[in-house]
């Protein structure tokens, strides 16, 4: 099928027509003739490269009640994503070639977006013994990102070995930076609010100490480190310093850490419970600045679906995590574009180009130019919508943005020239 997009503002620029044939962008110009192409009116819409998420929990295998590869990737497409990295903390853990290939195959069968499984760093994400990283790298899933996300690889020797080992296949270790002893029973950001609410604190230093150590380890062994869901102003400072040294350190920030603060815990509604926790306004500001100046490379959703019963509880026993695929672009617009911190080209860089590069995805993260893979998102930044959890495409409803009015809406998503979303509806 051939598509002709009429009048899209590419990266927020002037209106242009975009022709897509056989999965590739073949022509960009004005007044292009439809010939036999299906025409899509994109008047007022912005064309962005298909978004790439470095951090998605698809829950399959094991917790199909919360999400499946099919439902999660459909939610991703609805959010404008053409590729997601599926985190390894499934049941069983994605720590063998067999499991990562299963997830990869489920993604191909669903067809909503590319699924790149993340391999566990350690067996069973137990932090004791390296998983077969090479086998996962060599598998059909072609794993390049390794993470024990949900757990920190806190053993310094194991972390060093993992960083060294993945160099053989240009892999990257994505660290969930959380010093475990400093965060035993931790419930929320440690600060004024936690003290008042009587909830055990998750101090910023528990994140920053691990990031500091990992930066030094990465430098020492000359490997690539990626820092998952950076949440504190202090972490930003450390990463900025590491980058200034020329070390191969990259970092991501979630939409919720760019937008929400720990005061939301005052409701004791665990919809706001997440790991790392929501921090303070000062942290949010530092994270936005860091994303704007490139210290933080990309936005990653940490989409973490949970069934209703995991959140309709007291705060302490509730599960940590929030869904985010379907709201990521809107939140990023509100936090970064509407505030003037990034333009659309900048946002495309942080939500597509850079995450694709970190994940070593050859077919993703290309700006829309003739010859590039036809992975595109058409986005209407002018509308406003109130987030309704009941309307989510994800199987789960645990969005912290419920009831909030956010800007923008994904109008269409194309995966290699094939629409996965049209008129705001998944195909």
């Amino acid at each position: 099928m051939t598509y002709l997009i009429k009048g899209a503002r590419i990266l927020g620029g002037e209106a242009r027509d975009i022709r897509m044939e056989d999965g590739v962008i073949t022509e960009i110009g004005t007044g292009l003739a439809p010939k036999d192409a299906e025409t899509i009116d994109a008047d007022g819409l912005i064309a962005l490269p298909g978004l790439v998420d470095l951090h998605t929990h698809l829950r399959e295998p094991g917790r199909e009640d919360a999400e499946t590869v099919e439902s999660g990737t459909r939610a991703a497409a609805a959010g404008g994503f053409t590729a997601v990295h599926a985190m390894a903390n499934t049941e069983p853990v994605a720590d063998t070639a067999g499991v990562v290939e299963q997830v990869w195959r489920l993604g191909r069968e669903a067809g909503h977006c590319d699924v790149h499984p993340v391999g566990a760093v350690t067996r069973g994400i137990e932090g004791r013994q390296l998983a077969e990283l090479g086998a996962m790298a060599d598998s059909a899933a072609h794993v390049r990102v390794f993470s024990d996300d949900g757990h920190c690889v806190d053993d310094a020797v194991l972390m060093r070995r993992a960083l060294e080992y993945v160099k053989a296949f240009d892999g990257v270790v994505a660290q969930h930076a959380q010093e475990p002893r400093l965060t035993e029973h931790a419930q929320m950001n440690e600060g004024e609010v936690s003290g008042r609410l009587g909830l055990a604190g998750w101090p910023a230093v528990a994140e920053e100490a691990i990031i500091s150590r990992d930066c030094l380890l990465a430098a020492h062994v000359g490997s690539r480190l990626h820092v998952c869901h950076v949440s504190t102003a202090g972490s930003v400072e450390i990463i900025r310093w590491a980058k200034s040294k020329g070390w191969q350190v990259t970092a991501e920030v979630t939409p919720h850490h760019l937008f929400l603060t720990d005061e939301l815990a005052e409701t004791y509604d665990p919809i706001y419970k997440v790991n790392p926790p929501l921090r303070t306004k000062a942290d949010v500001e530092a994270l936005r600045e860091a994303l704007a100046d490139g210290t933080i490379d990309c936005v990653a959703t940490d989409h973490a679906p949970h069934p209703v019963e995991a959140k309709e509880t007291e705060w302490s026993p509730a599960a940590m995590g929030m869904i985010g695929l379907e709201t990521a672009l809107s939140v990023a617009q509100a936090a970064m574009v509407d505030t003037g911190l990034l333009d659309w080209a900048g946002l495309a860089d942080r939500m597509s180009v850079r995450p694709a590069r970190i994940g070593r995805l050859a077919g993703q993260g290309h700006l829309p130019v003739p010859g590039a893979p036809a992975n595109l998102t058409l986005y209407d930044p002018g509308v406003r919508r109130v987030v309704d959890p009941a309307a989510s495409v994800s199987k789960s409803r645990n969005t912290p943005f419920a009831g909030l009015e956010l800007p923008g809406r994904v109008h269409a998503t194309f995966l290699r020239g094939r629409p996965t979303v049209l008129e705001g509806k998944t195909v």
Partner: protein
Amino acid sequence: MKQHLISAADLTKDDALLILDTAEELASVADRPIKKLPTLRGRTVVNLFFEDSTRTRISFEAAAKRLSADVINFSAKGSSVSKGESLKDTALTLEAMGADGVVIRHSASGAPHRLATWVRGSVVNAGDGTHEHPTQALLDAYTMRRRLGDLEGRRITIVGDILHSRVARSNVLLLNTLGAEVTLVAPPTLFPVAVGTWPCEIAYDFDAVLPKSDVVMMLRVQQERMNAAYFPTVREYSRRYGLDARRMDALPDHALVMHPGPMNRGVEIAAEVADSTRSTIVEQVANGVTVRMAVLYLLLGGSEPAIGNSRTEGE
């Protein structure tokens, strides 16, 4: 707060004084031949205790019964809760039974907030995790007021595990509302990191604050804190932060010694201090029933709660 008593911060000064004044009037009920008022006849109060606390439960039960409410005791042990029923399902059960008031004790901070979103009745927090215990603070204030009069400008020293104490949180808030000056004393490990934002003073040196204290309230120290390296040994804690006879002598003559119980005699408080005439510990227990009667009456006695609302009429 409109309908519930979950945090001492829900109470304005007028609210707090109304509760204390009401308790003052209700105190005489305990001395009457018939220790019962018909006020809450036909109203159902559920004591929902997810944590063992016989003393607090009995206190609320006596309070509700003296007001002629029907009392249902629902303890987590041996109930469906221990079989994994969620707080929400329990709440819906109470709703179906038509509970007008739910008194909840729970090990999770914020459980009363959650419960309040699921039930129509008034929720009274009888202690939630390390968050708050507002009726304890009210009975403490009541006890102090009976002994010392108006609390405006009174200096109250609270000593012990502030970090994990719901009694301390509620007392700081309520006493501040009532115009008292609160000083918290603990080893630095047992303060929340942002305690500096609380409306009180903090101190590490117990001896320095003794002579200027009108009340010293000792908090229970849990053995498990020692294992988590909050302090080196119980002996050292006791030496630095325990209230012994020597420290009691450093108090002004009129000063009171309080403890919310249960006490670790010989750890945070010496036996001779606990049993001294300055000690209000037994009184606190008796006052608990009276204050809880006042809270239940003011929340459940009328067409709408009489505290927490900004009312224009005086009736």
